[in-house]
């Protein structure tokens, strides 16, 4: 929670709201990379892409 608050404060301070969608997409994509490292999620990724 504290992380999200800090991140929101950071984006407000930097006024780089255009980064938000990119951040969400890249976080999801990056998160998948993390999850697929030897995990059970791996097979589903191939069907997604």
């Amino acid at each position: 929670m504290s992380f999200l608050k800090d991140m929101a404060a950071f984006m407000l301070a930097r006024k780089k709201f255009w980064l938000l969608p990119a951040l969400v997409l890249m976080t999801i994509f990056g998160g998948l990379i993390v999850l697929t490292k030897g995990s059970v999620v791996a097979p589903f990724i191939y069907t997604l892409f």
Partner: protein
Amino acid sequence: MLVLGLSAFYHDSAAAIVRDGEIVAAAQEERFTRKKHDANFPTNALHYCVQEAGASFADIDFVTFYEKPFLKFERLLETYLAFAPRGFGSFRMAMPLWLKEKLFQKSLLIDLLCAEAPDVDWEKKLRFTEHHESHAASAFYPSPFDEAAILTLDGVGEWATTTMGVGSGNQLSLNAEIHFPHSLGLLYSAFTYYTGFKVNSGEYKVMGLAPYGEPRYAQAILDKLIDIQPDGSFRMNMDYFDYCTGLTMTNEKFDALFGGRPRKPEELLTQREMDLAASIQAVTEEIVLRLTRALAAKTGQKNLCLAGGVALNCVANGKVLRDGKFDEIWVQPAAGDAGGAVGAALATYYLASGSARPNRGKDSMRGSYLGPSYSDEDVAARLRAIGACFEMLDEETLVQRTSEALAEAQAVGWFQGRMEFGPRALGARSILGDARSPTMQKMLNLKVKYRESFRPFAPAVLRERVADWFELDRDSPYMLLVANVTPERRRTMTEDERKLWGIDQLNVVRSDIPAVTHVDYSARIQTVHADTNPKFHALLAAFQARTACPVLVNTSFNVRGEPIVCTPEDAFRCFMGTDIDVLAIGNCLLRKTDQDPALKQNYEHAFELD
């Protein structure tokens, strides 16, 4: 007010502690863990600093981390977006680390601090400074100046790679920046990689190699790689570099420009690498000179403070000094990221307290002797425990015996007082030798340090005699200025010697102190001062009394790839694993011939090569 500064998670993690604006202690984690450039959270250094301050964790008012993780993440994301879809490989490597750990650095830091002291409210005490603000603070606040221009140059922090500003009293303002990917530090590192050395540690080797070559590629660099403006600001042509998107510094286009693939580590060095080194060194000096000239004109300041990894380029520093645009320059001895810990702590102290900065007339780094020390009793107990054979002497006798060994061209391990903070050994954890010996450089490189034979050694000289031996008339206590040996100390070379090229120049005796005279007559000078290191000063004075020479070879007490020794045990291991003849730890004197041969170690391959 007690402020702890931390630098970690990239390379050279360190801790520093500041009490009421005074730097009490600072140390790099690698010295304790014995892992070169250790980037892990500096638990050992942190404990040492708190202990040295005679404080408990609860006494700490603020903890400051030396950079801002969110800003760094922003730079990473924007870079990947700008270059997408190129860079996917790098993105795939970087994201797991960021999403698992680096993005949550604040929580990670709090967790790690809580592991040391769970009862302290670390969240309330934790602060962050920007990377280059930490460098700038480490350059200005400990400097001897009330007012000065500030220049920081390194690879990259968050966005900034170069910053310029002014420090005055307790205020520091940075008002010009050059942003990633345009970076002098990364340009130099690209050539470090291309010439077959390790990025972030081999830059020194490139600088040492440069005088063997001719800058025949300098024009190609200026034409194709970088556009430099008259004020020193620059833009790089990223078509030739791979570091934004790939996993190497340079790409095929760079290879084509310089006529071949990068040299592989440990491959034979050729004239081409020497010429490349000379070329990037010349371009670096040109950029630094343009920047400092513009800074002098813009700020009207008479003094200059430097920090950031590029400020360790002492050849460029010497040129800035001789350029005369500033009356005095002061370089933070821990100019790399480790020094960010000192800067972060000092920046927070002056911001939080608003206290005036005392006018000392000299710098507050205490000779950079900010690390652990050991009493003679402690040293003796430790040496006995590991089976070492030693004599305990009084200080005067130890100094005399050591100077005698040095005059007989023996290699001496010199372990005295508090360990240095920063990459240079300054006479607290040093290996010393006779600078007059024509064979000393080769012997120390090959049999003691186990490193490349081309690498030069630095002289330590009595401050009061520096101008008699070198073209330098001021303090250089941190080995961060390069100047030439005076013409009267140089030796006239024969016609045959003059014709030698490249590495063949190495064995030519060029001066009365050949072991510390580089092929271009330059030397990376350390002036030794009675007030900051009286014992080392006394040793040089004793050596001078014997030999009429106040100069010794001073190199770090380690072998290639090993962090500089920290404890008496580290020193003894290194002593027994190399051809060091004599070891002085405090007032304990050890001779190799007295030691049990069974304690000898195979040390040559004990550390990963740097």
